[in-house]
Structures are given as C-alpha cells and as structure tokens.
C-alpha cells in the first residue's frame, strides 16, 4: 500500500485530504473547489467528505478569498486558498503583498498567517489568455512570503502538506501541464522525515554542465539531459523546488564542478528568477565558471496565443542550444 502510482493532480488531492484529516483548523477555500472539485479536480471529493465548512465554495472574488483568509488566520485557522488560474491572482495581489506578507513583520511576530495560496501556473495546455502565466517573480520578490513549486507527484503530495503545516504564508505553484503526469508516491512516509520544503534537489547527476529548473521545466530539462547523454554530454539537473527562499547551495557545489550553468524557466527572462540566480551563481562561483550563466526563458512578451506557445516556451532544443553555447565561449 505504501507506494502508489498517482498523477501529480491526484497526489495533490491526496495530500490535501491528509491535511484536512490531520488538522481540524485546515480549511480549503476557492472558486468551484466544492461540488465541482476545482476546475482541475484537485479538490475532488473533499467537500463531500469534510463538509462545506471545511471546503468552501467562495464568491467569485480573488481579493475576497485572500482577504477573508487573513481574517480566518487571525482567528486561528489554516486556510488553503485556491486561485483558479495564474492570471487571476492579480485582483488578490494587494491582499497578498500588503497584508499576508507583512502581517507577521508588522506585528513583531505576534500574528502568524499560516496560509497556503495554491496557484495552477504556466503554459503548455493550449489555454486562452490569462490561463498560462508564470507569476512567481512577483511573489518571490516580496519579503514575508515563501514560494515553492513541485515538479513530480511525490513532491506534490509531500510539499502541499508541508506548506499547509508551515507557519509561513506559502505561495504554492502547481505546474498545471504536469497535473496528468504519473509517478510513484509513498503515501505512508511520515511528514516529519520528509525532504525539507525549502531545499533544492539534484534530480540527475552529471559532470559537464549544471541545469537549474523548477516546476514544469524540470521534466523538460530531464529530457534534455537524456538527449545530451546520447551526445556524450552529462548534464546535472537540479530541481530548485523552493523559489523563496532559494536554496542554491547544491547549485554552487555543482557549478564549481561543472563550470557551466544554465537556468531555465517559463516566465519572461527580464528580471525573472533566472536573473537573480545567475547573479548569485556568478558571485559564488566566479572563479569556477568557464562561461557566463545563461538563461533559457519565456520571451519578454505577454503570454502569446496558444497556437504559438510551443515556440514561446523553453523546450528540449532551446535548453540544449544554451548548453552548447556554454561550451562555445
């Protein structure tokens, strides 16, 4: 029983169920999370089993979802808010950056907001506009928030529970195009012994170049590493997992060995996470670098129409092209 094969979406659903079971103060709230089970069915069946006081269908107002969750947090609840799509988080932006993020700081530690804000994010599903965005930099730039993202079912299952158990407000980004990808999930491993929430992880060891990615791009980079291996080049792939705080220790260690580093994300490159990561890797690994840190990202355009998103999104070839360029310096 311990290990089952689940989709990433089902792993999240199972993790949420476990959190509801373990702590009566956990409440799930969002648009369509109840009867419908969410537009991606991540909360499927939870209202049926835990009731409409624990799994709350809210009015259609994102600022309201987050703002009322602040009040519930002050009251002692642990709200898990679902924002239906990345592009719809902005009405709640003020509540997130001005209230959620600052409450602990301005109260000098007297108020905790142990809230999780779940956001399906990123492209690759052929969606209409506002449904494919990668807003992580906005939140990672805001002190007081923590930002994490999962890339596989096992992490999805564990990390969502860790985020809920955390006393921090956590923006939990779910790579929506990976919801249907399957993987083994150990359902019985105790949370206390799990890999830390805010730690990156080497997901493929290699010696020739370091590739840093997170969320939906981890799969892309692993595929790129497989392809590179066929050409005789061993890429080390690190899943960053936590975007705020960043855990770059393993990346530094890796780059000092490989001398080459490529950062990959879907979000636009300009002032994206990759910019910060490139700066830090350069500061820490300056004498080890054989070439500048390169970034493979979405372009600095609004997210384009679905029929051209494949060209917008970093893919295997663009990752390998960047790796090649680190060798051509």
């Amino acid at each position, binding site marked *: 029983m311990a290990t089952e094969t689940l989709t990433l979406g089902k792993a999240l659903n199972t993790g949420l169920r476990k959190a509801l079971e373990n702590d009566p103060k956990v*409440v799930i709230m969002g648009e369509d999370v109840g009867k419908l089970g969410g537009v991606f069915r991540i909360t499927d069946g939870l209202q049926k089993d835990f009731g409409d*006081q624990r799994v709350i269908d*809210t*009015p259609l*107002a994102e*600022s*309201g979802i*987050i*703002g*009322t*969750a*602040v*009040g*519930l*947090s*002050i*009251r*002692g*609840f642990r*709200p898990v808010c679902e924002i239906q799509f990345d592009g719809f988080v902005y*009405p709640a932006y*003020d*509540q997130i950056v*001005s*209230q959620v993020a*600052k*409450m*602990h*700081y*301005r*109260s*000098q*530690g*007297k*108020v*905790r907001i142990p809230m999780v804000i779940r956001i399906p994010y990123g492209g690759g599903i052929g969606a209409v506009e506002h449904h494919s965005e990668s807003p992580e930099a906005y939140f990672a730039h805001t*002190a*007081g928030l*923590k930002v994490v993202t999962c890339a596989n079912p096992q992490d999805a299952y564990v990390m969502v529970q860790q985020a809920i158990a955390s*006393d*921090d407000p956590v923006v939990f980004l779910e790579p929506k195009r990976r919801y249907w990808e399957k993987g083994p999930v150990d359902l019985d491993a105790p949370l206390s012994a799990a890999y830390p929430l805010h730690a990156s992880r080497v997901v493929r060891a290699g010696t020739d170049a370091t590739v840093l990615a997170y969320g939906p791009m981890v799969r892309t980079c692993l595929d790129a590493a497989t392809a590179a291996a066929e050409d005789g080049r061993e890429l080390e792939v690190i899943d960053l997992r936590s975007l705020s*705080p*960043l855990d770059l220790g393993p990346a530094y260690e890796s780059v000092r060995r490989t001398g080459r580093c490529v950062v990959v994300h879907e979000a636009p490159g300009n002032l994206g996470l990759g910019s910060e990561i490139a700066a830090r890797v350069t500061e820490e690994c300056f004498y080890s670098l054989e070439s500048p840190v390169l970034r493979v990202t979405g372009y600095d355009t609004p997210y384009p129409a679905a029929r051209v998103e494949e060209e917008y999104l970093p893919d295997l070839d663009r990752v390998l092209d960047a790796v090649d360029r680190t060798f051509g310096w």
Partner: protein
Amino acid sequence: MAKGDPGVTTRGRRAAPRSKRATRTGGPELVQLLTPEGERIESAVGPDGTDYRVDFTDEEYRGLYRDLVLVRKLDAEATALQRQGELGLWASLLGQEAAQVGSGRALRTQDMAFPTYREHGVLYCRGIDPIMPLGLFRGVDQGGWDPNEFKFNMYTIVIGAQTLHATGYAMGVHMDGKTGTDDGEAVIAYFGDGATSQGDVNEAFVWASVFNAPLVFFCQNNQYAISEPLERQTRVPLYQRANGFGFPGVRVDGNDVLASYAVTRHALDNARLGQGPSLIEAYTYRMGAHTTSDDPTRYRIASEVEAWQAKDPIARMKAFLTKQQIADESFFAVVDEQARAESVHLRERVLAMPDPAPVTMFDHVYPHGSPELDAQRAQFTTYLESFEGSAH
C-alpha cells in the same frame, strides 16, 4: 434619457440633484437620541422599524462624557506631538469622538474590532493603553500588537483591506460555533466614506452577506476622503448600499454618542445571535485635516466647518448633562484635569520611546527565520561594526 425617467422632469429639463444641504444634514432618516442642543429624544425608529433607545444610569452618562473628553484631549496631544516633530504623522479623530466612543462602548468583551488608522477612540474604549498606536506614528514600529490579546486588530492603512479581514474573522466565529446565543461573539469593521468605493469593501459586503457573518460594518462618513467630498464616492446615501447586498443599513447621527451606542449595540447583538451582518453609516464630520500632512482649507469652506462645529458631540453631551443636572461644573473640571494628566503622561512616554536598533529591521520577517536574511543580517552587523572606533 427616456421620457418618464425619474431623472427628467416632464418639461425635459434635468431634475436638480438632491441638494447638498439636505445630504449634508443627514436627512430625516438620521437616527438621533440627542440633538445638537443637548435635548434628549426618547427613541428613534430606524428604516427597518427598529426602535432605538438607551437606558443609561447617570454614572454611565457621565462615563460617556468622560470618554469623549479624554479621547479628544489625547488626540489633540498627539497632533501637538506631530507638530513638534515627535510623531511623523497623526490621523486625528477630531469631530468623530461620539461615533467612536458610542460604537466602542457598545462592544462586549468578547467582540472583535478591525480598525482603520483613525480609531483611537475605539481603542481607548477597549481599555487599551493609548500609547499603543503611537509607535506606528512615531516610526519606531509598525503598530505591532496582538489582535487577539486586545480584541482589536492592528491598524490597517490600505483603505478597506481590513473589512475583508473582519469578514473572514467573523466567518471563523461562525465556524467555531460562537454565534446564536446572547453571549455569542460579534465583529465590527471600521472604515470611512472613501473606502466604500474600494473593491475590497464591496467584496466584504458580498461575503458577509452570503456567509451570514456576525459582522457590523461601521462606516464613519466624515464627508471627505482626504479632499474628495462624499459626492465623488456615491449618489445614494451610503447606508442604503446595504439593501443591494441583502442586509440592513441604518444612518445614525455620528455626533450623537447615545444614538451611536444604541444602533451599534443593536447591530452587534443581532450579529451575535446569528442574524448576520448589517451596515451602520455614522454621519459625522472630520473637523480637522485628513492627517497632519493635509491642508483642508484647499478644499472646503469655513462656513461648512462652522456649521458642523455647532453639532459638536461633546458640547451637546455637556449641555444635556447640565440641563438634566446629571453633572455639574466640578465634575467637568475633574474630567478636564484627568484628561490633562493623561495627555501629559502620554507625552512623557512618547518622548521616552527609543528608536529601534537598526539590526531589528531583519526581525520577524518569517516566524522561523530565513537563511538568506540571517546572512544579510550578519553582513549588515559586520558592516556596522566596521565603523566602531572610527571618527565616523
């Protein structure tokens, strides 16, 4: 505009808008129990037929007067401290004492309040030391108190944001099963006329309504959002907004401490009994500036201020107490002396507030710290230490 439209007269000329004068006096719908002249009105009927009245002992009447005088005096002291450079900013409540004392005294111990940044009078009535918010305005902290300890949330500066927090908190009260009885809990959310234009306030109305939250929306309509008059926020009396959201609304004379108390107590009790939210529009006037950074002479005329001066909340209470022989000059003198002593005490403690150590800026960003911030703190500390012993 179509013929027969209520906005058009039969001669096709646009009807004159409701006169400013009528709006600015609060209109006949105003719930009032004490006239500006200090005449007591036995009871007043609200728009939904509720009969509002109060039954205070003489001691309680005198207590309300003392509250009004004290909060005004402490407020004046804070304004003076700002003028002398001891506070960075102050948002004065001058003119709004009755709305705040009336509603604040209507709260029961178990009730929770969500203030803006001007509810110094409510804070005082909660039994909280008036020094508490002054760290925020002096710039030595950011208003860091525990809302649950004082049943009084931290001041909220982003306009209207706290109404959603209050709504969520009230939903939590309901979820905790703390409504439906006489000793149930209720929540009050303070905001102003300008805030009624905010999305968050309107979302709070929607949420409180559909979740039947035990919440009183207490809007102090002080006629101005910094420089913008009420007409820039609304075409209808604010209390009527409640109708569209499906809960009762009432307009009360916000310069009448008795009526403010009566309507708030009634609304809170309805909330704690599980009858859901309501909106109170406390019709009042901001006698001073928006904050000490503002110059109201640029946007309002002296005669308007004078007209409101005649409706002063303290003067009318004093006239009532005097006429009814509930209090005499010696009582008023004692209250004045108490107010003076408390303001001196406040001043002394404000002046004694130390600046925080610079390194404390890194504290409390996260409940359990952060390795990145720990590194920055260490770097900053080393940097500061590099100046030690230098002629810097």
